[in-house]
């Protein structure tokens, strides 16, 4: 296992370098100009000055090299400095990746500011989805073709065929406009300091969490159900039943445990999606998470921000693929990597 891990981690390095190059090149070569969002009255000479001030007229290899250095050396150093409140070298002068849209603001600070909201809203939705989906999937499989299964299948089908922007809009119309139960604007500045503000936080998270959770739960429930159905006819299940164990025991200790192996993998692989945020859902409910950050950056042609955010997503996907493989090995004794 140890050897396997080392090998995997070593292969990650060239993968990430290749990814970073592709992302950087595609975005850098793509048409689009950060000054195009400026008012039309600004003259071409002025636009040229602005581009120059942003460092856009450097040749491609220089820009790429600079960005690599900023991303892999300068940003981690700044992070460490901030985390431990220490000074490494000349921190003031260290060049950091800065945004074009909000000139002067380090991209990494913008990202760190967004992470908590995304983790809270999208992460909570994921947790809610798991808590709902697994039991539904289990019951659907055991009582296959029962009313419960039929209704569950129907609702799941709705859940993953209706896009989140539509369910989001429906929820706003119903719960904000008609019933006035939940606010439609997510207040990022809300600090949870007491019971009242905690309730506020729950109220404003309710709709985005429900929309996302519904979508995720639909997929996970279907997956759990089919995984369970694969295991029910297995010999070991018959053996366990023949031994005279109660049905509940057989289901939980034998079938569910084995069925969850692929589900856990699916969950692990889905975690990067938490970070990329449900882009559209964040936009609808004005949750200022990473997804909304990315959308805004794309609209403003804020290339450094798009490059950095996309690359971080790529890193997360690579990392969680590895984690999923490792978890697989731990959960399933039949799988050995050596």
């Amino acid at each position: 296992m140890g050897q396997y891990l080392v090998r995997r981690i070593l292969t990650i390095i060239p993968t990430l370098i290749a990814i970073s190059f592709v992302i950087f090149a595609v975005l850098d070569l793509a048409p689009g100009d950060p000054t195009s969002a400026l008012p039309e009255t600004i003259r071409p000479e002025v636009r040229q000055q602005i581009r120059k001030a942003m460092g856009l007229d450097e040749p491609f290899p220089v820009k790429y090299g600079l960005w690599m250095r900023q991303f892999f050396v300068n940003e981690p150093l700044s992070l460490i400095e901030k985390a431990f409140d220490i000074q490494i070298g000349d921190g003031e002068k260290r060049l950091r990746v800065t945004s074009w849209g909000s000139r002067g603001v380090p991209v990494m600070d913008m990202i760190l500011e967004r992470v908590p909201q995304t983790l809270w809203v999208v992460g909570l939705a994921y947790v809610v989805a798991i808590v709902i989906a697994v039991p539904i999937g289990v019951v659907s499989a055991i009582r296959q073709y029962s009313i419960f299964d039929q209704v569950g299948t129907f609702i799941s089908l709705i859940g993953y065929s209706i896009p989140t922007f539509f369910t989001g809009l429906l929820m706003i119309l119903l719960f904000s406009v008609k019933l006035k139960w939940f606010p439609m604007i997510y207040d990022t500045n809300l600090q949870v300091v007491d019971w009242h503000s905690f309730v506020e936080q729950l109220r404003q998270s309710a709709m985005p969490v429900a929309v996302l959770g519904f979508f995720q739960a639909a997929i996970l429930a279907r997956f759990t159900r089919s995984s369970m159905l694969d295991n029910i006819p297995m010999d070991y299940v018959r053996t366990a039943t023949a031994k005279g164990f109660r049905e509940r025991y057989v289901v939980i200790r034998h079938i569910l445990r084995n069925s969850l192996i692929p589900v856990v993998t699916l969950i692990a692989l889905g975690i990067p999606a938490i970070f990329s945020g449900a882009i559209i859902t964040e936009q609808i409910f004005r949750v200022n998470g990473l997804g909304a950050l990315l959308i805004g950056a794309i609209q403003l042609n804020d290339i450094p921000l798009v490059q950095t955010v996309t690359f971080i997503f790529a890193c997360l996907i690579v990392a969680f693929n590895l984690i999923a493989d490792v978890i697989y090995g731990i959960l399933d004794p039949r799988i050995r990597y050596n």
Partner: protein
Amino acid sequence: MIGRHFSTLRVIAILLAMAFLLAACPAAAPTGGESMAANEEMAEEEVMEEEGKVLTILYWQAASLPGPYLSGGTKDQDAGAITLEPLANYDPNGTIVPRLAVEIPTIENGGVSEDLMTITWTLKEGLLWSDGSDVTSEDVVFTWEYCSHEETGCTASEAFLGIESVEALDDRTVMITFDSPTPYPYNAFVGANTPIISSAQFGDCVGAAAQTCNEENTAPLGTGPYRIIDFKVNDVAVYERNPHYHGEPAYFDTVIFKGGGDAASAARAVLETGEADYAWNLQVEPDILRDMEAAGLGTVISAFAGYVERVLVNQTNPHSDLGDDRSEYMDGDNPHPFLTFPPIPQAMSMAIDRTLISEQLYGFAGQPTCNVIPAPLHYVSDANDGCLTQDIDGAKALLDENGVLDSDGDGIREYNGMPLKISYQTSTNSVRQKTQALLRQWWLQIGIETELINHDASVFFGGDPNSPDTYQKFYTDLQMYTTGPTIDPQQHLSNWICEQIPMRDNSWGGGNIFRGCNSDYDALFEQLTQTPVGPEREALVKQLNDINVQSFYQIPLVYRGEVSAQLNTLKGVWINGWDSQMWNVGEWHR
């Protein structure tokens, strides 16, 4: 076996627990290290919020930075305008009103020199920055230095063009010297796009260093009614009452300037749920807005500046057989075969029901207009108002009288044997395509056939010299789009002199897109550049407008504005098309 089973469950349990922990952390921990102090203050305020008076402003485009100098969007300018102030503002009628200045300098009061080369502003007495330090004329000088420095990459540097120097005569007086006589000297430091910034704060941020001044750029000191206490990039800005404000203390304890989302839901948040007090730039179908307004919580309001949606009439021949000579002016040797005959475009203009277009398609955001200079009021001509009523019969009669008849009976009239078939292009946009369809139908009624073309906005307005589909190349007979004058129309009117005709030789660089050349216009324009602000200048602008409209180079359709919404309980809003919509936010109250 038992051990392994335990570990399986444990992994699941740990995963779940981790997810919960991660999810729970933001609720407890304050975000970001450097704004800790601000956050702590905020936390205290949050508790007070029940009693506090909060103003929530919703911009569906979130502000990138508060202030107009490093980020050119309206959202950024408006986020800045809540705290930053210029020397003077434009009011919604287009009149200049003093802000940090004691009065508006004119030739009469000696503030503007007779030779139109200098203007001298005097600051109000006892002005303070929001940190309590003094505002001096040095700050005004510094603002000019900051924005006109090439390496700053200042997005508002346009306003400082033609300024040779800005000098502080004493603590409260600044003199601006121009490099040539400037009849309209109020571009710099007037309006929300050129507010004064603090030299003490931004002193080290001039030039290339502007890019690294993270803290300064996101929390500029201001002189306005509120001061910034927290700015989350591309999300939300929070302001509190500025205790050092020179005017009446502002009404609200806290102003929240929230960004993001989309225009329709922003409208809904004001008009249907009342969660926000003000929502900006609601580009939403007029019917939907009317339905929302019917809920009775808020009101839809419109701001008008100078934008006119209009049809440009090509004065040169765009026929595709001409190859590279399409739509080339060639010193007047390549005229359009029939659109240069005034009765034809005149009849086309008469056949249009402008009221229908503006009511049905633009709703709150449009008024019918017959002028290319639609505002400010003192510059608006009333000589062309006849076009406001549709007159199809009159248009037919006009063509008949001038011998433009349908001689072969196919329903399309001919001029000199040439059938009146025209191509009409614009950018892809549902309102524009609907306008095109209406015009086509009316023109068919008077015997003119129209082919409708639309190009993606990024191509049409993109200015790529290799693309045949740009508005500058104008390879069709007609095209439609919007532009408009700034508060002083000279810059806008300068586009239509003969030397501004776009052609191959200047890479299609001029502003005289319709390629019309009129020596009377050029002579009057020359006169305008030497006439100071006053009744004489107003008369000249009206004449220039009339020449342009009456030679049918352009057919104005709709005077376009911007739509916002406010809660009915919010008082003091005076929506402004010429300046920031936040220009008088200090006077807003309940």
